[in-house]
């Protein structure tokens, strides 16, 4: 056993179900206690799905523990009959795997012909795999299952984009940005996998000329499998930044034998390298930054900050332990200090010790950095609802480079504001006013002369969240005056709540 208060990665079944439920016409059933279904809530909330998620929890109950497994067959039939998927993917949580249910037997017992969908169980190990490896494996195996041999290459140059998914970091925007990039190049996007890919598209994956990805760690097994089966070349680099995107497109043009002047067309809206030259961005030079998150994001963002904005990468790192060596190699010319850990405290200690001017990390680094007054931009999963924007906010391609510039700029401006307030603000203001913790004594408020608050009433007020206390106090005093009461005790507080509300 190991004590944990925070994990960067979700368990394997969440990675597998995130991958599987991103496909079109594929439904996922997770065999798990209902509590394991928190992935469904994330899907429903973060993706703001207006439909029932293509993900169902087959909940373990007391009856299951007693050996009753008929419910899984019933659920498969239910999903098949109601939603008509082409494939039903079944995955188990660690808890369910402990039960060692012979699900194959249950599935075999479904009468032939009653189920139209294919049943598929990815070879994910509930304990040994993690979110990233389970995701990558699941995509690769489903792709391998559907991809058909002997499909002809498309007449025009084409690519498959591997990696984007539901709950992926800014993936909807990234896909739009990459599609525009390839359109400018005159390259057709054959399929985006898994996000929205239907079995028909998967069957024709071998017809693309090239495979590229939005995150190497999520896409490599799929790209390798397609290379093995169809000889399709692939690019491991992910297009972060303006220079990074140009380098990426040069590789694309070389492989597809396209004239590289098309890159000029694609880059017409790119502004990051110009922004870096402007006076406003001079202040960024030599600014010390830390970068932590998913391997590809860190490799990409650290290089943008270093190469394109002339910032100093104090340290970089990832929580994906299997990819630490790769990341170290990628950043060899940028920083020696590469932190590979899945303990958020290590990262927090690093931020504390190095005190970078700006931190770039996951949601957790944002919180850690704020403890030390370090501004932080979120550039990687795991992230919160703020990173599921309504508008177009890509991180990849030329549009992504522009957006990264905005992110740096906005984070930096906040830092500057802070500094200005410290320097020029009124002495008693100092740092930003901190939120009073609940239950903390209120600073002495101007007390109305005609009313007295007794101890019982004050104690109750102390339990009301600080941000509504002032309004509540005013309401209660108004009520007391109406009732001609001079003394406010807890019964008056309660009566006022009843008559005037909170």
């Amino acid at each position: 056993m190991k004590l944990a208060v925070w994990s960067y990665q979700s368990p394997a079944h969440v990675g597998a179900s995130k991958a599987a439920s991103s496909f079109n016409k594929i439904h996922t059933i997770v065999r798990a206690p209902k509590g394991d279904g928190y992935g469904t809530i994330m899907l429903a909330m973060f993706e703001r799905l207006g439909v029932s998620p293509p993900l169902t929890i087959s909940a373990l109950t007391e009856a299951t523990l007693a050996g009753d497994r008929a419910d899984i067959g019933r659920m498969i039939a239910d999903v098949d009959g109601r939603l008509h998927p082409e494939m039903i993917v079944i995955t188990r949580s660690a808890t369910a795997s402990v039960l060692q249910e012979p699900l194959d037997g249950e599935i075999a017992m479904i009468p032939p012909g009653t189920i139209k969908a294919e049943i598929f169980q990815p070879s994910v190990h509930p304990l040994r795999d993690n979110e990233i490896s389970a995701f990558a494996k699941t995509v690769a195996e489903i792709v391998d299952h559907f991809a058909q041999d002997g499909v002809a290459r498309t007449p025009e140059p084409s690519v498959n984009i591997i990696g984007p998914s539901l709950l992926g970091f800014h993936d909807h925007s990234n896909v739009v940005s990459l599609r525009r990039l390839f359109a400018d190049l005159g390259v057709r996007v054959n399929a985006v996998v898994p996000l929205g890919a239907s079995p028909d598209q998967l069957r024709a994956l071998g017809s693309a000329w090239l495979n590229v990805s939005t995150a190497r760690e999520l896409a490599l097994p799929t790209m390798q499998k397609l290379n093995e089966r169809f000889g399709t070349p692939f690019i491991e680099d992910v297009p972060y930044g303006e220079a990074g995107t140009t380098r990426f497109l040069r590789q694309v043009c070389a492989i597809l034998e396209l004239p590289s002047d098309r890159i000029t067309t694609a880059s017409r809206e790119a502004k990051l390298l110009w922004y870096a030259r402007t006076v406003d961005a001079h202040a960024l030079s030599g600014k010390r930054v830390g970068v932590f998150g998913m391997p590809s994001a860190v490799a990409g963002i650290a290089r943008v900050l270093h190469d394109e904005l002339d910032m100093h990468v104090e340290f970089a790192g990832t929580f994906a332990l299997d990819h630490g060596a790769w990341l170290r190699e990628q950043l060899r010319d940028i920083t020696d200090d590469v932190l590979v850990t899945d303990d958020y405290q290590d990262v927090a200690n690093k931020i504390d010790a190095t005190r970078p001017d700006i931190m770039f990390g996951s949601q957790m680094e944002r919180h850690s950095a704020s403890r030390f007054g370090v501004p932080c931009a979120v550039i990687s999963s795991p992230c919160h609802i703020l990173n599921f924007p309504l508008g177009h906010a890509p991180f990849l391609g030329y549009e992504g480079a522009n957006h990264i510039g905005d992110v740096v700029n906005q984070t930096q401006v906040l830092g500057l504001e802070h500094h200005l307030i410290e320097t020029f603000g009124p002495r008693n203001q100092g740092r930003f006013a901190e939120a009073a913790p609940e239950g903390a004594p209120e600073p002495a408020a101007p007390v109305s002369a005609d009313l007295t608050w007794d101890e019982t009433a004050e104690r109750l007020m102390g339990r009301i969240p600080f941000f509504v206390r002032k309004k509540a106090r005013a309401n209660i005093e108004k009520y007391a005056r109406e009732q001609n009461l001079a003394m406010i005790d807890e019964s008056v507080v309660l009566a006022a709540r009843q008559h005037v509300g909170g």
Partner: protein
Amino acid sequence: MFDETPNVLERDDFCSLAPIGWLHHKMQDSFFLVVGTGSCQGFLQTALGVMIFAQPRFATAMLDEDDLAGRDALTALMPLAKTVVEKHQPKAIFLASTCTPEILKMNIAGCAPPIERETGVRVYPARMDGFDASYTQGEDHVLESMIARAPQTDEANLVILGCLSALEEAEIRLECKAMGLPQPGFLPGESALDVPAIGPKTVLVPVHPFLNGSCMFAKRERRCTIPVLPFPYGPDGSARFYEGLAAAYGKSVSYAEREREAWAACEKEVAQLRGRSIAFCSDALLELPLARTLRAAGAVVPFVSTPRIFKKFHAAELAQLGDLEILEAPDRFETFARLAEARPDLVVANLNIANSLEGMGFAVKWSTELSFQPIRGFSCVPTLFGLFTASLRRHDALAKTRANVGSAERPIDLDFFRLAPAREESLA
């Protein structure tokens, strides 16, 4: 006395670890040590994420392959418990067993006494697995564990069972005083060590409809009196609740006037509820009392879904629901289909399906808020009804904006809910 543990399949629900959110907030000197897997950790940080950044008083003892292969639980847990004591200095540790230890039949409860001896900190073992009908029942198991440590007594004291806010507790204290009843003890209190005495003459009164298990346990172990009362939601429920408290002590007190006053005081909210239809999706077991008081306020409740009915424990509520249609432990799609027929003005549903239902064209009030807002007693009536009226008002306003710009309302697709006829037979 009450009903046995249910066997239900419930699809749209949280984990029973969720009550850690409000229980650790209430008992400021407690620590919740959850023995489980990455899923438990994932759930906790997703559900209670914001609290993680403020020195959380909960953590997961993550099981690894050695634990699953049969390593002694106590050997593995002891050093973690010591770390918790050293770092957080809690007065009590709640040692929560989850699904995996239950399946493996690990004796987590058996680890509590030796850890308590070794660390000198009280340890309450509690089952908080996801096999329950509703996530709120996690609180039920925690309270059961605390009742086991209650001192004995021969006094006819009064114990209010269930986690309440300071406001709700204050009202109950004042009402008891006014009626000349004993000053109530509250379980849980502000300290995890503060457990009121319970004996054969004790009157134990649950305030939540999900505390069936701990009440059964108290009844069996301490022979205390547990009156079956409506739960104190709304003016009607609160009035009957207080009258019931008095009756348990042989007093006849009428709250009719108080109830009339309370209805008059919230007339503004009630006017907005009158005639509007509100349906409930299965969630936290709060559905029956909420439906009862909304009906009393003049709302129309076409049907209620609830994860489980405890016929004896919920008897006082059921008696007032009359012919109301209740779906017990429904399938998600069964509820959807029923909603599509009823087309209520407002659907109360949890976070799993709230957005989906909005996408289908329903107006939704997310239900989770109801399990952590102070909504019990007379003084909280405006808060309680306000949650529903605010939601109705918001939906009405937004629907008007959409109508003004001719934004098409999403039609409710009935076909989606229906199985192909051939399939229905094969499922039967």
